[in-house]
């Protein structure tokens, strides 16, 4: 176990420079209870340092931070929003907010989004925070998805980054002929298969259709959905994915790429850190945007956003609002998303993106090469119940593609039950 003391030291030094723009006006007092799901060591340190900086601006405020295990948080939030409620809580964007909005458990923070500081600089994520025309929280970080691949293996077999579906498959065939699997993946916890479906469906049918499907407006037995699965099946039939992926978590699938048994991984940017830690250098690792499938369809990307919210039952909403303003400020965004901290993309347009090969590519991709739109992720864009059923279907399809018809029939029955 190694502690990033150097990181903390740097942060401590930077607190002196912390903005005072928000501290103006009356000072805050009382208690501010913050619940975090950032339980991994690095994000935890980042968040705690940021809260310390906020505390220094408001010395009369008694801040109490509780960090809850990221997985346990997902079920505990249902309890603590109703009883013993904190003033600020982390969560995820898009449809994941909906159950809490419908149960009147999240505070409407549209007033924050009217303020020019936020309205002008956070416009790109506003949609993901909006339900029924109101905003229910603020984002604090997001990251791109895409294909992370072994540059050295590509070079060894004379491959280049593909841009079309044909090139993608041709590359894959070359790799397979040389005994290397094209993609590693671990579908034990299902959602990784959701990433593949996101991209295949958005590239085959476009962003609008994808969102319609996520919201239950399209039948699963629709021919367009079948077209997506047909594309997926091409890869499965080639043997593009590693064997036995259903037994692995996403982390357990990493060694295949590290050992060179598989050449690429469709993943979120959080996969870079463990790949680097496993010994892959930036010369061996690179990134490309998921290829075009149906020509002419505007590319859309997955970029899941993590968020802060004020529970409706919070007691110190004034301080909570001030904290939200602080979190999204350009300066704090630059710090917490910096390379020594979260290492992700800042949500504030005025912030600086860390000088990192992958973040730069991701930032460029999302800001200029994603005209179709930005999706959150399958299990955040669709309702929880449909997400669960469909991702299980995706996993089954990847293992037993011949069952496609029965899977789609089952998903269609589920959709009708939920949405009709």
């Amino acid at each position: 176990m190694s502690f990033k003391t150097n990181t903390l030291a740097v942060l401590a030094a930077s607190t002196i420079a912390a903005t005072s723009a928000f501290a103006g006006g009356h000072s805050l007092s009382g208690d501010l209870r913050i619940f975090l799901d950032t339980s991994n060591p690095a994000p935890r340190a980042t968040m705690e340092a940021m809260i310390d900086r906020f505390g220094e601006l408001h010395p009369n405020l008694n801040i109490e931070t509780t960090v809850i295990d990221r997985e346990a948080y997902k079920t505990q939030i249902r309890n603590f929003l109703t009883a013993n409620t904190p003033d600020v809580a982390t969560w995820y964007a898009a449809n994941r907010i909906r159950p809490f909005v419908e149960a009147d458990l999240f505070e409407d923070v549209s007033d924050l989004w009217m303020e020019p500081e936020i309205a002008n600089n956070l416009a790109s994520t506003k949609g993901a925070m909006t339900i029924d025309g109101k905003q229910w929280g603020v984002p604090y970080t997001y990251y791109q998805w895409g294909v992370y691949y072994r540059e050295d293996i590509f070079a060894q077999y004379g491959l280049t980054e593909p841009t079309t579906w044909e090139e993608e498959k041709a590359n894959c065939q070359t790799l397979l002929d040389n005994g290397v699997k094209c993609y590693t993946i671990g579908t034990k916890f299902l959602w990784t298969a959701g990433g593949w479906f996101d991209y295949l469906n958005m590239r085959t049918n476009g962003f609008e259709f994808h969102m319609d499907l996520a919201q239950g407006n399209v039948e699963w037995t629709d021919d367009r959905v079948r077209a997506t699965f047909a594309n997926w099946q091409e890869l499965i039939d080639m043997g593009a994915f590693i064997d036995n992926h259903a037994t692995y978590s996403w982390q357990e699938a990493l060694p295949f790429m590290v050992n060179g048994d598989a050449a690429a991984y469709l993943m979120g940017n959080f996969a870079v850190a463990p790949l680097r830690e496993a010994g892959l250098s930036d010369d061996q690792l690179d990134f490309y945007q998921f290829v075009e499938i149906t020509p002419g369809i505007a590319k859309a990307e997955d970029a899941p956003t993590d968020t802060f919210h004020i529970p409706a039952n919070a007691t110190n909403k004034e301080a909570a609002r001030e904290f939200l303003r602080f979190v999204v400020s350009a300066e704090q965004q630059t710090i917490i998303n910096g390379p020594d901290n979260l290492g992700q993309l800042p949500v504030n347009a005025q912030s600086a993106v860390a000088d990192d090969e992958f973040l730069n590519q991701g930032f460029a991709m999302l800001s200029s090469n994603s005209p179709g739109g930005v999706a959150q992720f399958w299990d955040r864009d669709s309702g929880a119940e449909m997400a669960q059923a469909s991702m299980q279907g995706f996993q089954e399809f990847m293992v037993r593609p011949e069952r496609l018809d029965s899977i789609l029939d089952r998903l269609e029955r589920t959709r009708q039950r939920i949405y009709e």
Partner: protein
Amino acid sequence: MADASLPQQKSWWRKNQLTLAPFLFLAPGALFFLVYVIFPVFESFQISLYEWNGLGDKEYVGLRNYEELWWDDAFYVSLRNNLIWLVLYLLAIPAGLFIALFLNQNVWGIRLYKSLFFFPFVISQVVVGLVFTWFYDPTFGLFNEVIGVFGLGPVSVLGDDRYVTYGIIAAGLWPQTAYCMILYLTGLNAVDPEQIEAGRLDGAKGWKMLWYVVLPQLRPATFIAFVVTIIGALRSFDLISIMTAGGPFGESRVLAYYMFEVALSEYGFRMGYGAAIAVVLFLIMMVYIAFFLTKMYRDEKGV
């Protein structure tokens, strides 16, 4: 509490002391049982008639949750797996018996061997699950190395819907066998040597000795082993959660896990549907509990 009433109270207490004492001793346990077991059972029945996400308002839907359960393939898969668990888990009893018979001898260091055999029961189910997950790992695991020696191809036990439940049960049998073994070891201590001697004089040997002389004396141990094994089979939740999370595509779920997934997991919030599954599981267990209670009642009457 006034002093004046004390003498009278005292005498009343004296009079009824013997009748009241058992109830007083039972009261805390009964209270907890009522609050944490009996009451939730009825509440589950009630919730199963509603559509409820645990946050908003409940909507009364009558028996619709049960109707949906009737058409739900995943429910039948879970039910089937529950039955497989119940049957195969009982293998722990004969396995435990034979290990106990094997260890029931006096050689140097036998205590060490006994504790080594008991070891798997001491470690947590979560650890057992992890160990077996690595053991079964299709790429790096020992299991495929072993069957590879016999020329059998690599098998992804936990990734194949045909083998996954059996794979998890095998993992569960490891600690359960140890538990049954300990029960039989204590039972064997109580076996009457004179009866063995008498049996031997009458010419009983080997299997016959075991079946007609030893086993009848082990009946209490067998009964307890049976009970804890059935309970263990119905509690199979943790191994499934650790080893497969119900997968691949839900093929290793049992009712308890399915209920958790539907009502309490990351994507689940269907309390009513979860409660309906719980009710069905409860009714299945009732059959067993009823059998258990009548048998106990009869045995006590018979003595």
